[in-house]
């Protein structure tokens, strides 16, 4: 059963905000506190908020387990592929092949106090995004599975 109309409306209004904030944390992982896990957890909490506000049936109609696990797997594959590309470029596994290269995310940074430029840190933003997608899929699908267990029992 869903909660009252007030809570539902609040969840609907809060959801884009939580998502944007989660992506903000993911994208700024190399500049401000945060990163893939934290941002992914925030976004997953956004989905969990929906699960709290709406009834189980109306949630499963829009959020499917298979798409969430698919997102999780894709994030992991992106992560491991990003790490493995370094092998092809002559580095080692998990070598940072974009840092200080001048390409995308490759602006060199001098030591010391720094206001922060998004276009830095090499593969770290890509990995942040990959881990973010993985964590958001993984954590929300865990909750969805557990709710389905409870739902089965109630029904």
């Amino acid at each position, binding site marked *: 059963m869903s909660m009252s109309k007030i809570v539902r409306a609040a969840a609907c209004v809060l959801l884009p905000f939580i998502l944007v904030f989660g992506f903000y944390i993911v994208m700024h992982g190399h500049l401000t*506190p945060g990163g893939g896990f934290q941002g992914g957890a925030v976004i*997953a*909490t956004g989905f969990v908020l929906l699960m*709290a506000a709406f009834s189980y049936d109306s949630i499963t109609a829009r959020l499917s387990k298979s798409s969430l696990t698919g997102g999780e797997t894709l994030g992991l594959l992106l992560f491991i592929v990003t790490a493995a590309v370094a092998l092809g470029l002559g580095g080692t596994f998990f070598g940072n092949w974009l840092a200080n290269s001048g390409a995308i995310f490759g602006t060199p940074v001098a030591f010391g106090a720094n206001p922060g430029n998004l276009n830095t840190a090499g593969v770290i933003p890509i990995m942040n995004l990959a881990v973010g997608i993985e964590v958001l899929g993984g954590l929300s699908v865990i*909750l969805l599975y*557990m709710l389905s267990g409870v739902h089965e029992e109630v029904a």
Partner: protein
Amino acid sequence: MIDILNGLVLIGLLVSALFIVRCRDLLSAAISFGIFSFLLSLEFYILQAPDVAIAEAGIGAGLTTAIFIVAIRGTTRWEGVRE
């Protein structure tokens, strides 16, 4: 001054941990776990670890509480229930 702050937060942590151990109502224990996560996150914040604080706030306070509540819903609320 910062030391007093530190000490107060740690006392709060220990009290809520003790309540988790002592309370027979699992739902109250889960609530106490939420408070515990809050205070742990604050302590990480005071110890200059904002990354960890965000992770603990998001995962510990939000998701872990939710998971515990769902698990309590799936089992039983009171300790010592035997059927």
